[in-house]
């Protein structure tokens, strides 16, 4: 019988994985388990409070909130995962190259990252989405642009330290080329912090997607998306209509919490020695927009 790693036996890990499985189930089964169409208005059923017919109530156009919350899992995770994947695929090789070669190109890349990261994140998001259009893929690309510097900086920081290590010198002496050294020797050793960052970034992406939609720069109505639902519901709060915003808001909390917990799990799995040193269960590291602490010192 395979022994379950210590990192996966912690309560936080169990909760994180359970939430992830729940979300995957919602994504796969959305058309089956949703009681109504998520984009079909029914004016006759406008703003109905939670009931047996509509467990989460209906919004102002009569769309079923439960069905929209379920279907929004697809959209929100699609945007978040794809944006982080894109940022990873672009940011990691970029960080590897600028860390390995350094020089003026590396300096230029770092200043560009400074520029992107110094910009207020929502202003930049709004500007990019308003130029490219309110499409799902455009939102994902915008988020990827915001995340690329994070991954590139992380990898670069690792590479700057690794490239001076004896095993790199040994590889070079044995005749390995730059590409070989970068991708076969350095990259596998530099990936760990980026892997942890993937999970944290997905949580950030969920929050940012919701935030962009809340301020009207995300996806279009009536696409089921949590931030957009919170935004449309917020207008009716004063009328005593709480259910339109509350349930998608809770969905955001659950999704972000899930990926924050998973970030700790990934870290513990990739670095068991550090996990063992940590006696107390890993805390929940809520994602903070902006550069990851500890990477700034490497910027030049």
């Amino acid at each position, binding site marked *: 019988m395979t022994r379950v790693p210590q990192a996966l036996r912690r309560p936080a890990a169990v909760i994180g994985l359970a939430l992830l499985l729940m979300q995957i189930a919602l994504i796969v089964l959305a058309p089956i388990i949703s009681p109504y169409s998520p984009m079909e208005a029914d004016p006759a059923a406008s*703003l109905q409070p939670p009931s047996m017919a509509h467990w989460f109530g209906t919004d102002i156009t009569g769309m079923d909130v439960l069905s929209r919350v379920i279907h929004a899992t697809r959209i929100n995770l699609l945007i978040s995962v794809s944006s982080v994947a894109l940022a990873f695929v672009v940011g990691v090789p970029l960080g590897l190259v600028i860390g390995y070669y350094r020089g003026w190109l590396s300096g230029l890349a770092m200043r560009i990252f400074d520029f992107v990261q110094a910009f207020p994140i929502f202003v930049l998001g709004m500007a990019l989405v308003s130029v490219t259009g309110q499409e799902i893929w455009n939102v994902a690309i915008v988020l990827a642009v915001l995340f690329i510097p994070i991954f590139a900086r992380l990898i670069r920081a690792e590479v700057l330290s690794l490239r001076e290590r004896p095993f790199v010198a040994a590889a070079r002496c044995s005749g390995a080329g730059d590409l070989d050294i970068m991708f076969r020797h350095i990259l596998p050793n530099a990936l760990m912090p980026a892997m942890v960052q993937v999970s944290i970034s997905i949580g950030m992406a969920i929050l940012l997607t919701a935030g962009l939609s809340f301020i009207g720069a995300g996806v*279009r109505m009536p696409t089921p998306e949590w931030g957009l639902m919170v935004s449309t519901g917020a207008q009716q709060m004063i*009328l005593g209509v709480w259910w339109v915003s509350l349930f998608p808001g809770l969905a955001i909390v659950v999704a972000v919490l899930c990926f924050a917990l998973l970030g700790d799990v990934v870290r513990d799995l990739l670095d068991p020695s550090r996990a063992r040193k940590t006696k107390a269960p890993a805390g929940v590291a809520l994602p903070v927009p902006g550069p990851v602490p500890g990477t700034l010192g490497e910027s030049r």
Partner: protein
Amino acid sequence: MIRMKSWPVTLSAMAVALMATTTVVSAQSAKETLLVAGPRTPESLDQEYPPTEAGHEARRNIFERLLVYGTKTDENGAMVEDFSKIEGALAESYELGPDNKSITFHLRKGVKSAAGNEMTADDVMWTFERGWNMKATFQWYMTQILKIDSFDAFQKIDAHTVKITIPNPSLLLDRLWINNDLGIIDSVEAKKHITPEDPWAARFLATDSASFAPYHVARYAPGQEVVYEANPYYYRGAAALKKVIFKEMPTSANRLAALQGGSIDVAEWLTPREIALAANIPTVKVWKVFGNYTHRLEMNNNTPPFDKKEVRQAMNYLVSRPDIEGSVYMGTARPTKSPVSEIYPAYTDEKFPYTDNVAQAKQLLAKAGYPDGFKTEIGYRTGEPIEEQIAVILKTSFARAGINAELVKLPSSSLVERYSKGTIPMYFIRDMAIVPDAAYVSNLFINSKSMVNYSHYKNEEVDQLINKALTSTDVAAREADMKRVQELVIDEAPWVFLFNPGYQLAVRTNVEGFSWYTPNSNSWYDFKKK
């Protein structure tokens, strides 16, 4: 000892007297100050700037016109215009030429602006000259409605008499001068701000006021607030409210919350659901009038698929108007069944055939060559929750006939740019025609030459009938022609006819004196606080 004791008593008495005086002054000041919240401050204070809802309200208060309609009280106690009575305002009286080709204004004497300058014919002539040369709003009225082709049409007879002569007879020659956009400027004050680069004081009048109106602008901070102060010399007597502070509060829910909390006295442009809630708040009174708006979904008649009449008709057959009326408007609106407002003479809805009929719509789409529907876009403005609700409902409605409508939410300026350039196939427009005349309304919205006919609807017969009516004085023939125009337009359906949302205003119960004018703008002169 006695003297020692009397000091505190004296001081106390003085303090009480001071407090009492302050309280009285403060109470007086509160009763004379009105706090209003609306979605946006006016984009400009100049009459030559394109008309907007916020701009109209500023014009209503900081400009005075030559003529006004008489007033009457409607069934809810609101003061509304009586379109059958035209009365003097800055012009004490007027005479129409026997052939309706000239009008002579006899200006009221002793009328003063807030700057203290007395009005003369020179002010009126300078206003006309400015409008004519700025080639915007004023010139559009003169050339398009009165068909004037030269400034020679305007003539100063003496210091208090002005005459306008037009090439063709017009039934609008008198009532046009009631229009909100045709206020008279205090030329003495405006001329102080003229420069060689700005011969018409456009920069000054965009951000300040110079007129003979009940109010002048004391502070104009776009995006924040406008402060109006009463003109002490106003010819009908100074306003009861000495100061009106208009605050920009873009979110309607915030305006309602502020009204409920007592931090403002008047909340403009609440949504129907908020109006329903406000009506149940004991400290709030809601005024409702039928109004003259048409809220419609225009289609670009020049581009496929909306270049086909059958498609446009099909779109009208795909709207469940009772459902929208109930869920979106909460019963405060009525379906629009003509391009002309229901409260204007010559209105007819007799030929309006459109009901919610999917089978009929599918049949029409098949006939037009779109049996499986098509893909299109619907544009609506940010900050317009009602338009978003209707757009979502219509998207579902249209999908029943295979029409896939993408919803595009745009800032107002971007949407205007797109429909002006014809780059969006469907878009919402909420508009009203200020002059209560079917020919005026039709000319504005559906004459193919109109600059606001964004749907590019064109029908030779409609154009001819409108142009004929604009230069005709035969009331009966005009009415018959205008009914024919409505019949043709309803059949050819340049728009998806939606609703007249009415006009509602929520005020604190200590605010009295609601009045309604055709531009749907509040005249603070008519209001007072208890």
